[in-house]
Structure formats: structure tokens, C-alpha cells
């Protein structure tokens, strides 16, 4: 039902340990899968949002996001970091899972509604743990399709 989440935009083994390199790594992932048409422009938009306030909202989650013309189609990259990333989070805890949201400027409401629902579900600790402890991209996707 939702093309926003696909297995090739998921990595269970994020290499980066700090915020900047984590963002670079995930932006590359999105770029390699043809989600973006202008990598730098998208990254600038992501960093601009981070400057306003960190999207590391605590509980080991970060949701960097941008709405930009540089995006071809709405997608969410999911990166799990077993070691944890210092994302300058509100609660200073290392981030275990990063959802990087890419939305084109002309995104339709359905995509935005799905993201809103995902955001609401992430508050649930059971759901978060399921995601973080997924053994494969496919397993992770099954939790997301329930949205």
C-alpha cells in the first residue's frame, strides 16, 4: 500500500557515529535509490531543519526531514545503528534508529498522512523496540505495513 517504505532504503548497519556523517550516509542511500534529483540541495534542507532544533527527539530516535524540490518521490530511509549515533538529541541519549524523511514539494496528502501516522506510532515503545531489533529489512517492513 505504501511505496514510501522500501527494503532498499533500509540499512540495519549504519556506520556513522556522529550526526553529520550519519546524515551524509543516509542521504547517499536515498540518492543511490533515485529518490533525489539534487543531493546537495536536499542535504541543505535537512541541515537547515536541524539548525532550528535537533530532530533527535529522545528515546533513541531521530527523524531528520525535509520537503524539497530536490525529491523525486516521497520516501523514508530507515537506518538502524547498533552502536548508536550521537545526534545531539534532546535527552542526550545515543540514537539507535534514524528515519530520514524525503517529501517532494508537491507531495500529496496521502503521503503526509502516512508520515503523520508513523510519527504517532513511534511514541509507542513496543513499536520502537520491534523496529530497532529487526533482524532484516523485510522484517522491519512488516511492522511498517501495519501503519
Amino acid at each position: 500500500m505504501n511505496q514510501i517504505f522500501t527494503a532498499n532504503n533500509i540499512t540495519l548497519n549504519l556506520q556513522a557515529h556522529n550526526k553529520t556523517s550519519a546524515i551524509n550516509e543516509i542521504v547517499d542511500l536515498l540518492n543511490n535509490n533515485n529518490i533525489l534529483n539534487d543531493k546537495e540541495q536536499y542535504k541543505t534542507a535537512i541541515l537547515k531543519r536541524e539548525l532550528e532544533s535537533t530532530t533527535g527527539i529522545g528515546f533513541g530516535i531521530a527523524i531528520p526531514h525535509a520537503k524539497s524540490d530536490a525529491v523525486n518521490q516521497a520516501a523514508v530511509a530507515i537506518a538502524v545503528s547498533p552502536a548508536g549515533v550521537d545526534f545531539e538529541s534532546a535527552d542526550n541519549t545515543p540514537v539507535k534508529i534514524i528515519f530520514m524523511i524525503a517529501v517532494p514539494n508537491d507531495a500529496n496528502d496521502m503521503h503526509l498522512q502516512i508520515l503523520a501516522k508513523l510519527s504517532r506510532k513511534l511514541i509507542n515503545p513496543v513499536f520502537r523496540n520491534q523496529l530497532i531489533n529487526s533482524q532484516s529489512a523485510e522484517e522491519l517492513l512488516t511492522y511498517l505495513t501495519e501503519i
Partner: protein
Amino acid sequence: MNKLLGVTGCPTGIAHTFMAAEALQQAAAANNAQIKVETNGAVGVENELTAKDIAEADCIIVACDKNVDMDRFNGKPVIEVPVADGISKADALIKKAISGTVPIRGGQEKGFLEISDDNFNGKPSIGHEIYKHLMAGVSNMIPFVVAGGVLVAISFLWGIYSFDPNSEQYNATAAMFKAVGGASMGLMVPILTAYIANSIANRPGLVAGFVAGTIALSTGSGFIGGILGGFMAGYFAKWMVKILSGLPKQFEGLKSIFLIPLVTVAVIGIIMTLLGSPVSAINKFMMDFLANLQNSNPIFLGIVIGCMSAFDMGGPVNKAAYVTGTLLLGEGNFYFMAGVSAACITPPLVIAIAATIFPNKFTKDERAAGFVNYILGCTHITEGAIPFAAKSPLKVLPILMLSSSISAVLTYMMKVQVPAPHGGFLILALVDKPLTWVACILTGSIVGAIIYGLTRRKPL
């Protein structure tokens, strides 16, 4: 159960807006509170708060990294935090919101009559602005009047001339009470003026406002001069800040502690001094006019005051009568306030007495609320009658206006003196003819209660 409201939003409006909304809803449920959350997301504003929601809310939590309309929350307890706090600290925010310790957001609360109008979305009118600033001044002034008025009145317990060393009644303690009370009363005009200006222009207005108020006091232009000075000082300071906003940052300190105070105080001070004698003549004329009216035409004055006080119960019209009474109190006129107080005390008593003598015309809940109105009435809280009036205003308000008018007219005819601007029957000891005054108020209240009770239909 506590009724809370939330507003969430982030600049992109894709993720955090909704996470914060969800977190607040869950935390509210866990803390046994009700919450409605407005989301300012990329899809626009959803679940928008209505004026009614806001009026009924106990506290509002705004977790936003983008600008949302905040003025609609004036007069309500408001917590403002970044959207991330709405997500990670939702539980703490809800606990704080229901603790009842959240400070009230500044600005004038929308009055009772405005809240009932859900379509009221327009920009505040000029009249409303002026009213808001005037009330900011008045509400800062009232505590000084209450403290001062009651202390002065206490000194009168030793005799009306007990402060005068040359009088036989002289008593050192009484003289001290009168001096302390007098000091507090003496600050009335400067405080009123300063806080009108402060409401318009914040700190820059305060300085010129205080000076203008002090000049109004010393030149005898009194309250009229003070109100005039407050608005001049406020708008002038606001204008100064605006035209100086182009100055380079390095001059910021110089501007706020030197330039603006110096120029505003000089300009407003000189204008106030020049206006002193003409305005004091107007002030004197008005005070004399009102004082004459209460002697020559107590019935007319009583009807006007009664109708004003009961018309919107705590709203702008009621306040206009109340403020006039307070101002005259500062001028040493204790008669005028007696009528205003009587008119303000009457509406809740009408409700309370009606619920007592016509119990079968009221539901159980209404009888309980009616009983509370005895307490509210005796302590000068007119607002107690609002829920009853709101049910059928066209029928109830005229009855309340009639009863308040009767109370006020009788009070003026009996020439009762009430030296304190608030407190209802708690300050009875300070009233010169306490029993007469209570009788005047009860007469109006009982007449009103009988009419109200007879015109009510039995509840189903």
C-alpha cells in the same frame, strides 16, 4: 477532570508535529486528563481549537517551533516549549499543566460576551485595544486602592478626625494607619498611568508613564490626566522604539537606558505639565458633576449604575461603572462606590435567593450553584450570576438590571458610605451605615429573586 489543550507544530510539519500530538494525548490519558491537540502540519491546521475550547480549558500547552497565533490564549495559563519537548517531556508537561501553577499569559482575557460568539475571529478593534490597556492599568492599581482604602477606613474606627493631632479624637495608632493607607492610595494615579503605558509599550513605556502619572497627581489633573498621560507615554515610547529600531546593534544599550527614557520623559513630562491646569479643571468638573448627581438625582444615578453593573457582570460595561467608583474613592468620595458595590453584589444574591425560595423551579445542580451564589454575592463577585444569565440572557438580564438598580438607588438615597472598592460584606465593619446598606441590597435582591423565580419554568 482537567481540560487541557495542546498546539503542536514544526517548520516542515511532517513528523514532529504529530509525534508531539500523540505523546501529549498519551500522557494526558495516563494522567487522567482530557486533551485536544491542534496540529499545525504540512497538511494544514487539523483539529483546530475553537474559541469555546479555549474558554473552557484549564491550561494550554504550546509545543511549537513555528509561529502560531498565540494571542487567542491571552488570559489563560499557557506553557510554551519547543516541539521536541512536547515529545520527550510530554508527561512532565501534562503534570505541570494540571498542577495549576502555570502562569497566565499576559493580555486581556476575552470577555464572557465575546466567548459566546464563536464567529469572533477578526483583529481586535481599536476600542478593544484601548480597553485592554486601560484595564491593564486599572488591574495594577486596584490592589493599592484596596490596601490603602481599607487601612484608611480602619483609622476611621477611632473617629473620623482621629488622624488630626489637633482634634480631640486624635490617636497615634489611627494616624499611623491613615498615613500608611494614604501612601498606598497616593500611588494610585502614578500606577494607573505607568501600567497603561507599560501595557502599550512594555518597559520603555513604563518610565514615561510613571513620570506622567506623578505629574498628573501633582498638577491636580488626577485620573483624567493620568489616563491621558498613560496613553500618550505608551504610544510615544512605542513610536520611539520603532523609529530607533534602525540603529546599529552597538547602540542597543545606549538606546534603552539613555536615549528612550530621556526623550520620552522630557517630551511627555513637558506636555503633562502644560496640560496640568486645563485637564485638572475637566477632572474637577467631572468629579463635581458625579458628586452633584448623587445628591441631586440619586434615582437617575442609581438606575444608570445598576444597569451598567448587571448588564455584562464583570465585562467592560460593569468595569466602567466599577472603575469610576474606584477613581472617586481616590478623590475621597465614598458615596459613589457604595452604589456600585451594591449593584455588583445584587445579581448573585438574586440567583441565590430565588433558588432558596423557589426550590422546585431549579434542578438539583442549579440549587447547589445557587447556594454558592450567596458566598459569591457577599464577597462582591458578580460573575457568579453569569451561568444563570447565560441560559436565557434576554429574560434574566433585565431582571438583574432592575434588581441592581433598586439596590443602587436605595443606597444613594440613604447616603451610605463604602470606603473600600472590593470585599462585599467582608468590609461591612468599615461601612458607615452597615445595616442600612445590607437592607438596601437585600431589598433589590429579594424583589429580583421573586420576579426571577416566578418567571422561571419548572425544570422537566
